[in-house]
């Protein structure tokens, strides 16, 4: 400290010494063993005596390996300097704007930046390992727990303070205060209400409606059953009028699959005692299923012609297209909903109606 006071000379008088009666300066940062050098014996750590201040080892002289290391460190930093200049040169000199130019620029910039970092890292590491004298210090680990006296004093003052606040004594104030904070706590949640509209029944409907044309995804052209004549084929369909509407497509995307005669088995169920065909909504062995997986909504995009299996690439739910898209493997709980098909006056495939059940993932209100 004496050094520090001396050099402060020009700035003014040295730091004033402590005035008698004022509290001693206390360290403000989290440190080790605060307050124990003065009163260590009194604060419950009586058994521990602060060890004498350890000193770092003296740097005696420079052995030959240190002077070698010094050169290596300097080389590392020099290389980092050169690479840093190289980075700036590459930034200035190399334009981007095409894939090739970007890759060249990325290579030059990334390489030079890597060398900068490696040079600095290696230099610093060799410096600390080879040039600094090996030092090991020992510190006492103090228990974080405050001495019992301090804890009691704290508890006493806290009790005093609480008593003085009369928080306990005056229930009317206490309870009305708590009451006042209840709506306050609810406000942050309430104001989130306008984050979005309520769902109502919107998840139950798509934009498919009677007579809406099926357009081929990509070309956006309507299609007749004759045009889609190759058995085993699968194409993705979007609804006419919504070809660029992502919100509509997220529910209304459809797979169109053509079967050979006799391959497609229409699901049946017993209505009372008579077996009736359900979902008898196909045209010319062409069937339309929702493309949105009933698991968590990925597009079911993989179709295996020989087995008629539709596979979701996300979680491998597998649906049998020949039997009403029933689930044969994976986490999807339901078949893919089928879109009722028919043809319009021009012979184009159109939807007979919307899906008869909600498409996509399960939700609480689905039922």
């Amino acid at each position, binding site marked *: 400290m*004496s*050094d*520090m006071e001396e050099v*402060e000379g020009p700035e003014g008088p040295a730091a004033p010494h402590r005035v008698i009666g004022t509290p001693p*300066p206390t*360290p403000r*940062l989290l440190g*080790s063993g*605060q307050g124990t050098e003065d009163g260590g014996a009194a604060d419950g750590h009586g058994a521990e005596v602060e060890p004498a201040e350890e000193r*770092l080892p003296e*740097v005696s002289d420079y052995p030959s390996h240190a002077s070698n290391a010094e050169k290596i460190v300097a080389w590392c930093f020099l290389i980092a300097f050169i690479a840093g200049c190289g980075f700036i040169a590459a930034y200035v000199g190399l334009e*981007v*704007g095409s*894939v090739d130019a970007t890759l060249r*620029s*990325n*290579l030059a910039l990334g390489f030079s*930046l890597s060398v900068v*970092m*490696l040079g*600095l*890292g*290696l230099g*610093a*590491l060799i410096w600390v390992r080879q040039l600094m004298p090996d030092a*090991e*210090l*020992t*510190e*006492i*680990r103090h*228990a*974080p727990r405050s001495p019992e006296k301090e804890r009691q004093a704290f508890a006493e003052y806290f009790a005093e303070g609480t008593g003085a606040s009369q928080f306990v004594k005056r229930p009317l104030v206490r309870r009305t205060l708590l009451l006042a904070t209840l709506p306050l706590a609810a406000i942050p949640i309430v104001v989130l209400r306008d*984050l*979005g*509209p309520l*769902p109502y029944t*919107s998840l139950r409907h798509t934009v498919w409606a009677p007579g809406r044309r099926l357009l081929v*995804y990509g070309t956006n052209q309507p299609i007749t059953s004759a045009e889609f004549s190759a058995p085993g084929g699968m194409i993705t369909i979007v609804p006419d009028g919504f070809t660029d509407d992502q*919100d509509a497509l*997220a529910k209304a*995307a459809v797979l169109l699959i053509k079967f050979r005669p006799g391959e497609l088995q229409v699901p049946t169920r017993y209505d009372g005692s008579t077996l009736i065909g359900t979902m008898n909504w196909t045209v010319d062995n062409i069937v339309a299923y929702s493309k949105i997986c009933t698991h*968590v*909504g*990925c*597009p079911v995009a*993989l179709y295996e012609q020989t087995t008629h299996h539709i596979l979701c690439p*996300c*979680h*491998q*739910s597998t649906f049998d297209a020949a039997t009403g898209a029933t689930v044969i*493997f*994976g*986490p999807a*709980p*339901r078949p893919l909903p089928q879109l009722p098909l028919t043809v319009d006056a021009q012979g184009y495939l159109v939807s007979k109606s919307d899906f008869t059940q909600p498409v996509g*993932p*399960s*939700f*609480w209100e689905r039922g």
Partner: protein
Amino acid sequence: MTSSDDFKAPRWLAGTGGWLDDRFGGARGIRQLLKKVFPDHWSFMLGEIALYSFVILLLTGTFLSFFFVPSAAEIVYHGSYTKLDGIRMSQAYASTLNISFDVRAGLLMRQIHHWSADLFMASIIVHLLRNFFTGAFRKPREVTWLIGVVIFMLGLLEGLFGYSLPDDQLSGAGIRILEGVLLGIPIVGTYAAFFLFGGQYPGTAIIPRMYIIHVLLIPGILLALITAHLIFVFYQKHTAMPAINQTDRIETGQPFYPYFLAKTTAWFFFVFAACAILATFAQINPVWQYGPYTPIAISSASQPDFYMGFLEGALRMMPAWEWNFLGHTISFSVLIPFAVPAGIIFGGLLFWPFFEQWATGDRSYHHVNDRPRNAPIRTATGIAGVVFYGVLWAEGANDVIADKLQIPLYTVTWIARVLIFVGPLVAFIVTRRICLGLQRKDKELLEHGLETGIIRQLPDGEFVEIHRPMNEEERAILEAKKVPALMPAPGSEDEHGVPAPKSRGAVGWARGVANRAFAETVVVEADGHGNGHGNGHAPGEEYAELGPGELSESSVPHPDPLLWHPHEEPPEES
């Protein structure tokens, strides 16, 4: 009072220091900080990797935010990437292409950002495992541990939102899955999804909302938590690995200034170099190849970043279970993968320190880490958790595994469905036995010393191998084992026939069982050969603190003629 004979602080530095101390004080406290001791071990660098990856993330993320446009508004692209010329896409995707191809160093920054995010999560996982297996989470460091687990969980969310921002085809699938999972939450799920997305999926609200969560909300919380984490590490001091000069009372290591400061700065540069090298030579997330997001298309082998893999695997593994009742749907095929693995992993991590305290009844401070073998139940549980996580994670790439290894896809999933139950169990049993086996090896070393490979013939013709007793350093490591105290057996009674209070009831019984499992150990015999230091502690006794003074006793020459004493010349072979 100069600190070194070589160096005297220049006037400007000393003057500045004096000026600051006049106003804020703190010379003493800061001196103590500068002299703060850091115990050394390679595994203590893992947390630093996470810290420095976070710093790199902040630096590169700030750069990216200058150019990224967080908007779902559609535009027609006419930029430098000609393959997508004329394609409709969101501004978010278009601006990501611009960062990649039209901003100098933009691609490098994007790739460093993504690589350091992966490094952040990977180093957190390894750092967490190190702290678990060495018992570094024990009193007084439970809160530091809890904060770390929360950082891990927030990191998952931060990463998910981050890689989803470019609005490319691959990450869009991830967001679609997020929506499907939200819908699967009973009662509030549909509302949660509608409020997050501002209506039906996908809408236009999700990108700006993810953006502000990704660049402000979560990083802000992470910054606060990381700061608290570091302050606690500083304040409570670092743990030490078992060694001769590390006890629960003293720690030994190099001081912060200049040693640790220089080392950790070097380490920062190395971490940055690793990210920069990866970003230069290893392409990551080439969004221009995936194309802009549309909910209608997807590519095969869609995988999230590695840290989301275990949740993805859980979704893939689950069979199709769903309940419909009273007009409502509970989709267990979404709910269980969403809640159960994460609940087991994160819940387990959060509760473990307190469970262990409850089972061992150990309320004392622990500053010296355990060697994993010396806590067989903890280590076995940890390995079981690793296997559980690993099976989920591998199943997250089941299609790739099936493709590369030519195993049928469904077989891979079925193997995972079996392994998720059997794997952790087997891992637990095997690991526990390995731990006890390694303890037996330690016992052997302490009681009989190390086999030297030197054979000596005794006067009666018998050949024996010379054992060298452990030296002080080796002995300190081996003897650092601490065994939890054994509680009264469940249902046991004291001399008055009163059952021990903590052993009553089902909870007491469970605690007794857990306690006996934790207290199991290989006892080192007190009169073992070459062990002049009595350490035959039965389970239940706390080991006495080993001070340097006590340790030096153990080098007293031992009368056993078969032992080679380190201070003697090695015996000649006869």
